[in-house]
């Protein structure tokens, strides 16, 4: 190979040097780019860490919110039936039907609906019923322990002629409820120390309250109202109808009568009248009610109030006040007959006291037993203090009877004025103040008697 001359050598060295330096410079540039990328990645990761830490800081608060929500939803869904309860629901519907006096022509489930955790279950019932039976049936659903919503209903009048009583209508009722599926979105997040946190959050959970289903409503029943799906007009043919004005007049007369009885009754309760006046007034009311009942029964049995609209007035203005007054009079009579009068109570106390003093303990208990159900006046009743006295005497009599059954044979006493006296009882010596057993205590020893304390009562044994 030909040797390079100096110039060529210099050129070669310079070329190689430039090449190598250039390669190193390129390498540095490439490495700097890598460093830049790494730095960007690090910065990005730092940002992610910061964001994650910000989220982590919120975990306790979110955990609390989740616990409150979980518990609230668990509380809310208690009103929904569980899947296994659908058959129970069907049985409940049958029970409602029986209690309402209807029988189903058809009951069919409708297409399920709803979304997510709640599946809608609907049933459609078809049946024949009077208006009152239908409303009672519907009310059973609306007051059922589980959530049931009446979605649709229809009632087609079954009255074939005007002014019929208890017309049977064609009814179709659709009710719906919801099934709750708690696992529809998978298993819940594991929250450590759940029970302890639950305890801490009980106020927040309670504050959310239960589901507001509105005021509970009970169907009021017929209450003398007419069926609004029946033409109330009177038929011209056939029946002999009391003219409307006569029906109205009849209601007004009965109304006056019952008002007068009511006034007398209220007057009889006034503290300003004497006992004799009270008895006389109450007797008048009682007789008046008997007479009223027989007259009103005549009207009802003969259907003298034929017009459905006036029937409602008859119920409201006559039957209802009559029932209320009868209830008041009966309650007073029951109270009067239920307890011994004051004089009776006092006589009982006197009799029991005498028997106790005479030592007729069993007779005192017998007297009490015979009258026990007539002295249990409630607290606050004017005779209550007398009841307490009677019961006190009864306790004494029972304690005395128990005491008399205890074998206590006194064979001698030693009475000393300067110190404690003693008694020889069942062959053993006891001093005053000494216990014979846990319930019996020697209180005092005298020459002809020994005084004991038994179950808190002082009892004296003489010989």
């Amino acid at each position: 190979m030909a040797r390079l001359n100096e110039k060529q050598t210099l050129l070669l060295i310079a070329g190689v040097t430039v090449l190598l330096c250039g390669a190193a410079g390129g390498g540095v540039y490439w490495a700097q780019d890598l460093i830049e990328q790494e730095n960007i990645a690090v910065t990005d990761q730092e940002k992610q860490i910061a964001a994650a830490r910000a989220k982590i800081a919120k975990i306790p608060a979110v955990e609390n919110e989740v616990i409150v929500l979980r518990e609230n939803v668990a509380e809310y869904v208690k009103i929904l039936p569980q899947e296994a309860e659908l058959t129970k629901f069907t049985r409940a519907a049958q029970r409602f039907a029986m209690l309402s006096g209807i029988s189903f022509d058809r009951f069919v489930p409708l297409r399920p609906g709803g979304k997510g955790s709640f599946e809608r279950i609907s049933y459609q019932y078809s049946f024949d019923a009077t208006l009152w039976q239908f409303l009672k049936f519907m009310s059973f659903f609306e007051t059922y322990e589980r959530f049931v919503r009446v979605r649709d209903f229809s009632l087609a009048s079954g009255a074939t002629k005007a002014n019929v009583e208890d017309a049977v209508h064609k009814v179709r009722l659709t009710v719906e409820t919801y099934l709750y599926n708690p696992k529809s979105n998978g298993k819940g997040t594991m929250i450590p120390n759940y029970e302890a946190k639950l305890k801490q959050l009980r106020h927040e959970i309670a504050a959310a309250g239960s589901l507001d289903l509105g005021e509970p409503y009970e169907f009021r029943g017929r209450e003398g109202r007419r069926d609004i799906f029946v033409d109330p007009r009177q038929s011209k043919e056939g029946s002999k109808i009391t003219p409307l004005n006569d029906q109205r007049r009849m209601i007004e007369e009965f109304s006056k009568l019952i008002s007068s009885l009511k006034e007398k009754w209220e007057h009889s309760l006034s503290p300003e009248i004497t006992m004799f006046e009270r008895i006389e007034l109450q007797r008048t009311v009682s007789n008046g009610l008997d007479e009223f009942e027989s007259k009103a029964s005549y009207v009802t049995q003969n259907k003298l109030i034929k017009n459905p609209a006036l029937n409602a007035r008859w119920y409201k203005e006559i039957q209802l006040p009559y029932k209320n007054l009868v209830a008041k009079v009966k309650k007073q009579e029951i109270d009067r007959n239920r307890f011994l009068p004051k004089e009776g109570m006092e006589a009982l106390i006197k009799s029991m006291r005498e028997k106790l003093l005479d030592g007729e303990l069993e007779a005192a208990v017998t007297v009490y037993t015979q009258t026990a159900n007539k002295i249990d006046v409630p607290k606050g009743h004017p005779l209550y203090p007398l009841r307490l006295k009677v019961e006190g005497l009864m306790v004494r009599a029972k304690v005395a009877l128990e005491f008399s059954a205890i074998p206590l044979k006194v064979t001698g006493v030693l009475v000393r004025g300067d110190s404690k006296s003693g008694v020889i009882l069942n062959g053993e010596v006891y001093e005053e103040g000494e216990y014979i057993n846990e319930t019996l205590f020697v209180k005092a020893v005298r020459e002809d008697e020994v005084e004991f304390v038994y179950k808190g009562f002082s009892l004296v044994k003489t010989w």
Partner: protein
Amino acid sequence: MIRINLLPESYRKSERTSPKIFAVALLAVICVCSSVGWFGTVYFGDLERVQAKRVQTKERLDGVKKRELLYDSLVQEKKDFSRRADTIKQIAKGRRIWTKFCDELIDVITNDGEMDRHVAWFSNIQVRSPGDGSKGPIIVLPGFVQGNDIRKIANLHDDIEATEFWRDMAQYTPPAGSKKIDGDLYPPESFAFSWQWTMKGTDKWIKNTPGARLGKPSKPGKPSKPAK
């Protein structure tokens, strides 16, 4: 001229690199070494340091990611339970006690036996609730008012409009009627009408608006076109 060195190889004076070349070569070596050193410093020093930092940060990130996932899972569950709570509240809101509605309707129609204002009855009733709560139930009530006096229809409307359920009504049929005569009944005349009521959406019901429950008057509904 050609100069020929005739001395044997061992006697010849040894050849020396020219100082120029030597200087240039030395400079080149210094430059190349510096360049390579610089590259080495950057590649094996700075880059590795940054890479190690990234690995370290990644480890830290992996550590917090697990807790972050827990947070995300909790947030998701919170959303899910909030949705469930809202759904069941909405379901509960949409429940109307129809027994109460019917009781009120019967009270108005029966009117305590008072016959002077109106005596009315219906041939049927249909209640349909739309699927969502945005629109309220629709009630169809064809009926009759006894007598020959259309003021009684107005009276009936007035009494109906005083009921509690009426406050939830969005649309209703204005007073209307067509005369019917049935010679077998007394009185033979009556006016037939057909009511169609549309209730407000469930969110606007009185029971679902706490302010209204306290007694604030609600906006009355609007009369719709008379039924044909």
